[in-house]
């Protein structure tokens, strides 16, 4: 039995995610769209916190909501004049897209509801049964090379990011 607080937080966040997701893809103003995305990301961060992954939530806010969104906003400002409404593709494409999206959503939701595995577990119990994830453990996980340790991907990510930096600079350079 989860606490009422948890449930309330969940509902607030879930409704926010649903509403802002829909808004993000239906609004005509691109800057608004970015803003709605920000809200979605923040709401997701809240869910991470609720699930007990504080570090992840922090990263989500810092990197996603902070870094990536800034990039978005900059890009939008660079490529748009003020009040520049972006067109949405013609209506039949929209209808098809809507159909596919709705069909896919319905299918997935049905699948979810018919999957017994997903029911009947409580969040509190899960958090309680799981171990507490401390920064130390995360640090160990990223710097070891044993089983369930991720030094190699970590390094790979660093190289990837480096490549991205160089690539980004190269691509965005004038001439």
């Amino acid at each position, binding site marked *: 039995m989860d606490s009422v607080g948890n449930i309330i937080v969940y509902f607030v966040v879930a409704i926010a995610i649903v509403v802002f997701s829909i808004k993000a893809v239906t609004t005509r103003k691109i800057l608004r769209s970015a803003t709605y995305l920000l809200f979605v990301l923040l709401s997701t961060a809240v869910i991470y916190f609720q699930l007990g992954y504080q570090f992840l939530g922090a990263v989500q806010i810092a990197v996603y909501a902070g870094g990536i969104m800034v990039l978005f906003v900059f890009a939008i400002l660079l490529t748009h004049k003020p009040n520049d409404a972006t067109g949405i593709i013609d209506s039949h494409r929209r209808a*098809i*897209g809507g159909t*596919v999206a709705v069909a896919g959503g319905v*299918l997935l939701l049905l*699948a979810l509801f018919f999957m017994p595995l997903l029911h009947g577990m409580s969040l509190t119990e899960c958090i309680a049964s799981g171990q507490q994830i401390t920064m130390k453990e995360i640090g160990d996980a990223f710097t070891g090379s044993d089983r369930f340790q991720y030094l190699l991907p970590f390094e790979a990510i660093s190289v990837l990011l480096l490549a991205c930096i160089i690539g980004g600079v190269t691509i965005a350079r004038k001439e």
Partner: protein
Amino acid sequence: MDITLPILILAIPITMFLVLGIGGVKMSRKLAGILGICGLGTTAVLAYIVALTYYFSGDANFIIDGVRQQYQVFDVTWLAFTQRLVVNIGFLLDPISALMLIVITTISFMVHLYSWGYMEHEPGFQRYYAFLSLFTFSMLGLVVATNIFQMYIFWELVGVSSYLLIGFFYKLPSAVSASKKAFIVTRFADLGFLIGILILSYYTETFNFVAMTNNPAAVLQEFGGATFMGASLLTWAMVLIFTGGMGKSAMLPLHIWLPDAMEGPTPVSALIHAATMVVAGVYLVARMFPVYCVVDASLTFVCYVGAATAFYAAVVACAQIDIKRVLAFSTISQIAFMMVSLGCAYDLPIEGVHYSGLGYMAGMFHLFTHAMFKALLFLGAGALIHAVHSNNYTAMGGLRKYMPITHWTFLIGCLAIAGIWPFAGFFSKDEMLAAMFNRHWFWGAWMMMVAGLTAFYMFRLYFLVFWWEENPHYKEHKPHDAPWQMSLPLIILAAVSFCCGWIDFGQFVTWNGVPYHIHIEWVKVAIPSLIVAICGIALATRMYMKKNDLPTKVKNFWPTLWEAAHRRFYWDEIYMFITHKIIFGIICKSIAWFDRHVIDATMDAFATITQKASYAIRGMQSGSIQAYVLWYFFGAIILAAITWLCLI
């Protein structure tokens, strides 16, 4: 016998051909002419030595107990189809091949000599001698063949040399088309020959003449009563082989090439289209004679074809204005005579007497005499053409005063072919008619009528050329006798035509090698045929000796017939229609159309459909990521739905 001479007989002409053919361009005319004549002279001498040795030496190889033998001087493997079916190239000496050696080399030598004068100013003189040598080589190879396949090989070579020589004046479209026609018609006949050989050799498993002819009964047995469409296979085989002979010997209905072949130089006509190549068909039948005898249906076929051709050609010859064509039709008619004679020759007892092979001997005799006098006539015609530069008798007339040598020799030739005693034709024709009467009175009577026609049209020609009235053109351009190179062969051949009938031919050539003494049946055959011939001559004399209007009257009596005979009863038109309209126009054109518009179009259609289809679906490769994602999710959803349905 030593094999050097026979090998040389074949080797010298082919060497001459290669030497003159390859080196001829660099040679002077004189050198080429001398080389050609000397080469052929040597060949002739060697051939005479071989032939006379065969006839007179009494060697055990050649004659045993008075029976002449077939002797293979050499016989080497050329190509082995299977273990047993082996093609050899060899040299067979027997009465008829020795005879042919003499005939061919004699005529060929005369023609070589004659051509030196006749062709003197023609371009391509060297080439001409090269072709003559090639022809002589092929013809010699043909007659000495030890097996039917060797004969076929040389048969084809003869055809090609004939093609080359007819088309010698290759700048003239008429010569080109005549040579083409000659080759294709004979080739068509050779197809029959080939199929005949295929059938025959399949059963006998040999090509060898000696093996087949010495035991024709065994050949019949090997066929074992196999039949096809009601006739025995052996009959089919022999008839098909005879078809080859029909082509070469210009029998109805494959005769159409021979008159056109007169487009070639006249000496060539004398050599190939009168004396040697065209009798190859007769020679072929004679060669396979014992086998023909065991299937008399095929021999009867020979008879019918010969009789029809002889009459047809004689009628047509009466209505020609080109002197060479008259001679050509006369050749056809005379060869048909030989064919009928062979056809009537098989072993048939009449009133207890076996007249076995009389017709065979007579046919060969006539082949011999005809070669001589027909060559004479052609060479004479050549001299006339040389003098007046035209082939048509309308450009001639009254030439006897201007060209005495030609006149007298030509007259001898005409008398010989008409069968007047004591000229050569009389003896051979008498024997042939005797053989035909032995078979059935119908054949004798029919052919006697043809003999009368022969006398008529030959003397028609003779009078129109040498008598009738003098052509006015002679004043501007006075005709004269030919130079000695041309006159000498005329005189020699005239002499031979005059006296060669007195040879006791039966001593040399009979179907089974047993000598036979010719005796002339004066009452039953000779005198009637003489009377018929003289009637023919008399009629010709009445109509054509002096200029009068009787010929025109006769012509106008039934103009359609005259026109039809003049146009050779429209055989050429019929062939033209079949070949051009039907074969070319319908079959070939439609096949070619079918190929382009059906087969090829189908293949193209595969390509076009592929291309169209890819154009049609390339719109899906729009480059729009959104569209891809759309399709991707669409597919994913469908797959998911399917999976899910399956799981439920």
